[in-house]
């Protein structure tokens, strides 16, 4: 299950960045991948739709949202937590 979530999140981010999933590493930041604010909002929408979760994220202050977007691994961990909270 855990790997499944990671793979799906990476696939979403890779699609947004127009990269191959193999080029998206856990250490990558969205900035590294060339994802801007609109790309981020679209990625979060795709994550919500894929996992049927609600992501607490306000574009006005990403650092203060309860959703860590500092790196791909942070996003994966946050999604795992949200999925777990739901079950």
């Amino acid at each position, binding site marked *: 299950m855990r790997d499944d979530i990671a793979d799906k999140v990476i696939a979403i981010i890779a699609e947004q960045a127009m990269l191959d999933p193999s080029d998206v590493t856990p250490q990558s930041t969205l900035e590294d991948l060339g994802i801007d604010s609109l790309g981020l909002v679209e990625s979060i929408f795709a994550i919500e739709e894929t996992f049927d979760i609600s992501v607490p994220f306000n574009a*006005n202050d990403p650092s203060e949202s309860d959703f860590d977007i500092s790196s791909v691994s942070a996003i994966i961990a946050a999604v795992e937590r949200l999925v777990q909270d739901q079950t």
Partner: protein
Amino acid sequence: MSHRVVITGAGTINALGHDVPATLEAMREGRCGIGPLDIRDVDRLAVKIGGQVTDYDELTHFNRQQISLYDRFTQFTLLAARQALGQAGLSFSGDLADRSGVVLGTSGGGLNTQDENYRAVYEEGKNRVHPFIVPKLMNNAATSHVSMEWNLRGPSFTVATACASSNHAMGQAFNMIRSGMAEVMLAGGSESMLCFGGVKAWEGLRVMSKDACRPFSATRNGMVQGEGAGVFVFERLDHAKKRGAEILAEVAGFAMSSDASDIVMPSKQGAARAIAGALRDGGIDRSAVGYINAHGTGTAANDKTECAAVADVFGAQADNLMISSTKSMHGHLIGGTGAVELLACIMALRDGVVAPTIGYEEFDPECALDVVPNAAREAPVEVALSNAFAFGGLNAVLALKRAP
């Protein structure tokens, strides 16, 4: 040929009041018109607040037949236009009617009508809708009904530039009178997007606040939507003087610019070009500007970009002027916002009272201007600017002077 243009009538309905005196009183008192949304399916929204027009019953103003043709945004427009023309004391016939028109801004037009009827056909599975849905929802409906009701037969159209719509509309009206194309113009804008589909679409961008609109405050966390209308009577100065009309303010300058860069992120350069352009157009010295009604949406992106643009244009003079966002009180009326906000400019010029930015909690070094926090201020103002910077990077700034 260049004519001077003045404002001889004003009308509004918005979350702060159902007319101009009530709205200005609320602005003087720094009262907040934002509260819990009372709309269908609000429980399915993540954003549950807005600057809604309350205590409003369409049946007290319009008959059943009119309501079948007037979307809420058209109703708001007609009520505001009625007040503005009542104050101006004008009626239109003959040559004056042919040389007078209507230019109004809106972004969503009859969005409530669309929302209700999509719901009827998609959710409720109905195969039939009311016959007047198209003339009710079209963006130019409000302009056309104003034109019909008051016999304004000259240049008339609707402008849609998202959050800058009414400033663009008022700028067109100003230029038409200035150039001699028209004698009197009804100008302003209206918006009513506070319905389930309207708010749901905005939620998607994740720029909406769930608790309050706090422009320029370090604690700001997004915009809050409002609704309503503002309509003004723009008139050639000599025409107004000849009939002894009371003049509320002079429209002195206007400029537009396009960022040509991003569909949602604002640009300092684009905003600065519009602000500087309005000053240049009106032959106004920077040092004469006492007040700027900011676009001030309360988003992270707008407020710091707008402050940087003002600092760019005004240099050291930026520290001597006041800049406030009345969106903190009435919310963001999108296509109608510049019209309601122009009232704050008129209040500053005519009454010497500058409307505050309420909800201000904490200094933000990226918005280091005098934002008139939380309480209105008495100060003489000779020139006021009104900023509007739209999604899509389309900017429109008006410059007003105290009545001559």
